[in-house]
């Protein structure tokens, strides 16, 4: 047996050193390669999973936002339509009120104008009367100048009134 081992070159010291060699390599690779690589692989896997979950969540949020947007748009549209209808109705009411007020104002203005016209007319009449009196007076004076003692003032006034009334009718 000893001879066979010698023939094959088997030496317990070499065997041991090869085993130690292997052990050293195992420890070195374990510490510097396997452990950190496995850790990084797991870390990356976790990150990817997290990223995917977040992306899915974001997609759900986006879909929700789209639905919400559509709903809000629809709501706003309905609201706008209602507001427009309300505004239209209010405008109609306001318009009729304005028309009514305008009509009243118009009537008021017409009445006022009437009153003013009447007052003016009266004033003109008074003026005319005064002017007529003056005129008649002047005329009478002119006439009386011819014979002032025969002409009575009362007669003159009566004559003027008659003339005036005659003119008026």
């Amino acid at each position, binding site marked *: 047996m000893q001879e066979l081992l010698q023939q094959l070159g088997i030496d317990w010291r070499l*065997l041991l050193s*090869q085993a130690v060699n292997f052990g050293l390599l195992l420890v070195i690779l374990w510490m510097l390669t*396997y452990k950190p690589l496995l850790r990084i692989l797991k870390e990356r896997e976790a990150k990817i999973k997290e990223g995917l979950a977040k992306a899915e969540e974001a997609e759900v949020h986006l879909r929700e936002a789209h639905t919400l947007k559509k709903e809000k748009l629809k709501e706003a549209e309905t609201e706008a339509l209602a507001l427009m209808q309300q505004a239209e109705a209010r405008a109609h009411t306001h318009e009729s009120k304005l028309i009514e007020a305008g009509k009243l104002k118009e009537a008021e203005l017409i009445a006022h104008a009437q009153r003013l016209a009447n007052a003016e007319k009266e004033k003109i009449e008074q003026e005319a009367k005064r002017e007529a009196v003056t005129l008649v007076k002047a005329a009478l004076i002119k006439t009386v100048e011819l014979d002032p003692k025969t002409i009575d003032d009362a007669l003159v006034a009566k004559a003027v009134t008659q003339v005036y009334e005659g003119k008026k009718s």
Partner: protein
Amino acid sequence: MTEAITQNADMPPAISETHTESAEGSGIHISIKAEELFHVGGFPVTNGLLLSFIILILASVGALILWKKITLIPGKLQNLAELTLEGILSVMDNILGNRRESERYLPLIATIFFIVLFSNWFGLIPGVGSIVLHGHETAPLFRAPSSDLNFTLALAIIAVVTVNIIGVVAIGVGTHIKKFLNFSSPIGFFTGILEFISEIARIISFSFRLFGNIFAGEVLLTVISFLIPYIIPLPFFFLETFVGFIQAFIFAMLTLVFTGMAVQEHDAH
């Protein structure tokens, strides 16, 4: 230690042509055992062991470079390492059934795979086996560790012992020993003895399979290179590269399968 170093460029790994002063003039030097190069305090250093140390140093430096570059966003080197590791893990998943178990035994299986692979492939590098030391004994400076029985045997013993330790951890000392010492029935007792023999056979088959394949490959390359030094050895180099990978894969896979058996037995109980 050495008197001269010469290089036989045509000579492939481990086995070199030695130019002797003999009557034949020259011949092929084939040695089944690794040659001693020098002693360090009474401790022999063979050419196989020397290359084994070099592989250890290079692998450690490589691992250190990779370790410094490890980031969440991987570079080329990290990508390659992750790809390799993922590949090994997925093979392990198929055997062991789950990722947690695979990660637990990854250091053992992956280190076995890498050390055997590097030991096989380093034997094919030009200079290994062809750089010859002319001392009191003429021997190649480097020899593929896998073509040294000390390496393959050490690895086989480590693999078998570790598998048994894993078995003990998984199913308990008592149950594990019962596999070998079973007095419940004569058949059980006989099976126990067979189990024990098979453990020894595993060590022998592990070590001699690897040693035989790599050593035979190197002998083949030496002979071919000796007969026709140019072009013709090239396909054989490709073949040996493939054989080197396959042998590393087989060694690691068998260890994995035995580990899986040891662990699964725990589930069965």
